[in-house]
């Protein structure tokens, strides 16, 4: 199962390496990882998604909590949380499909970041399902990246 862990860690040398390293060392598979600064410049907020057996969930949290630089690790898999993804997508498009692409982009409320003779770079946010659809639609117009 996918477990989402939110952790607050000190902005110290190697702190990031420790948090990801302990997961690798203990044999857990990381699915995704984001790091951001917090309002306190001494602290960072990290969100890690790991693929674990349900019975390992508590152990993962305990192992991360043992790290000296980690103030707190919490399992937020089931907590009500806002989960949004962001996609940056380059689509190569022939001249004749440009307008159609822009129409579709509007439906998904995607923004045009860059436009050139070869195509567009689009930015879309939303939940995972909606973005998967967005990607599928764009793929039908040409090569995407």
């Amino acid at each position, binding site marked *: 199962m996918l477990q989402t862990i939110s952790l607050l*860690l*000190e902005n110290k*040398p*190697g702190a990031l*390496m*420790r948090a990801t*390293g*302990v997961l690798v*060392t203990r044999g857990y598979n990381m699915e995704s990882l984001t790091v951001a600064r917090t309002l306190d410049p001494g602290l960072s907020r990290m969100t890690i998604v790991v693929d674990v057996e349900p019975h390992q969930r*508590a*152990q993962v949290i*305990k*192992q991360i*909590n*043992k*790290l*000296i*630089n*980690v*103030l707190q690790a919490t399992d937020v898999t089931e907590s009500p949380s806002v989960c949004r993804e962001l996609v940056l997508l380059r689509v190569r498009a022939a001249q004749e499909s440009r307008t159609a692409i822009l129409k579709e982009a509007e439906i998904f409320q995607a923004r045009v970041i860059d436009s050139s003779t070869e195509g567009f770079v689009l930015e879309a946010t939303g939940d995972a399902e909606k973005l998967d659809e967005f990607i599928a639609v764009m793929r039908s117009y040409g090569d995407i990246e």
Partner: protein
Amino acid sequence: MSSNLMNGASMLLECLVREGVECMFGYPGGVTLPFYDALYDHPLRHVLVRHEENAAFAAQGYARTTGKVGVCCATSGPGATNLTTGLVDAMMDSIPIVALTGQVSSKLIGSDAFQEADTFGITRSCTKHNYMVKRIEDLPQIIHEAFYIAGTGRPGPVLVDIPKDVFQGNGHYAPVSTIHLPGYKVYTEGHSGQIRRAAQMIWDSERTMVYAGGGIIAANASAELRELVETINAPTVCTLMGLGALPSEHPNFISMPGMHGSYAANMGMTHTDLLIALGVRFDDRVTGKLAAFAPHAKVIHVDIDPAEVGKNRNPDLPIVGDVRRVLQKLNPILKETREQEAPKKAAGRQAWWDQVKAWKEQHPLQPSYSDSEIKPQHLVAEIDRIAGGRAVVTADVGQHQMWAAQLVRFNAPRLWVNSGGLGSMGFGLPAAIGAQFGQPDNLVISLVGDGGFQMSIPELATIAAYGLPVKIIVLNNGYLGMVRQWQELFYNNRLSSVTLDCFPDAEKLAGAYGFKGRTVEKPHELAKAIDDAVAEPGPYLLNVKVTPFENVYPMVPAGGAVNEMVMGPPQPVPVG
């Protein structure tokens, strides 16, 4: 304020002195030159070993026999990488050591400079925590934090990597008065409600078993353990790391459980209805097949590391805390309630004790002897005789280690020194060096295999140079015995690369280093040879040739249930 202006090397020494460090084990090199220069006329004792791995093992030997934080030191690059086995070993056995490594100058880091290695990265998973000092101002804080982290909570190794320019740079030393580590959580007290529940569970059980480990020794909780065991009169097993936690001669002590544990210990574990697990981690060498381990038992698990609780076995009652503090709270409750509670299950408890004693009598752990050859167990029994439950015995890894764990008595903690979790060959001899510095007035015996000994031969020079009266006893079976045993039992006796030919002549070898040594192979000569070795004021190398093909029994085959242990070699079947 020029009085406290000093370079980083002197500042480091200042910190070590403040931490109460009396001796350290190390090996110098290019980037640690400034540090060694400061040591030159400093009272702190630096013991020059002959290989950095052994500096870490010696620091452990010191830590394990004193309870203090051991210190080792190495130069950058190869010096630091040579330390790693000793660090992982300390990590596995929760031994507090601080490792100091030199690093190339800050401005060269990342340039593949001469003797540069990513020590900070390499040792991330080998340590409880590690540091790289970037500025001399941070040095005192980091050193004191390192000692604090190593020695508190679940102890472990901490490494501090120090670039050469930090050693050389000047700064003002300001004593560090507080340590602020907001992310470092140490749970010592134990939940009072849980402790009260534990007391009730104990009185409600009939077939209680205490399962005590290295955590008791780390927490200096032997007295409290003894009080518990006597208050509830429970049979007690001590793990490989916990030997000596309860005196071996205590009537409640059963033996070590697990792969080479006794019949009584493993049967006890299998049939208990309440397992009181204290400072243990349900290691696979103890539990065997986890699903079949202590199948009828409720489990109370006390450990200072929350991650150990529920890692391998889900306890019915978890108590996270320092086992000493927890027992200090639990014992009075048990004493208060004993009169009222103990009689309720008295009959059941008596029956349990009768059963445990019967198991003990059915298959006691006992040495075997022969008239023509020295049996390895005979040698270990002799070591037990001379040690008398009071000497320090360090072991290497292999068959000899298991026989020692089965047969040598330890009537106090911090006498039995061995590499439990990692099983690092080459540990025994350097650990004895540290142990002799840790307990200078005690007899230190280093029981090593002929394989492991040859991994440590360079340290004979250290022993000679410092005149350490360590008694090195080689259990020489001519084989990498433990591997040979597995090849015999599980690989059709195809003995592949386990023969140890060309063992050096012990008398000449010791003589080359300027001390005495000898080889014995006759059973009737053994006792005197050991007496002579111990009577010698200096070091001694006693090479004992034993029966080559002896196996360690009982044995739980890997992955088997502990009650399915094999008690001995298959008996020859009579023909006809």
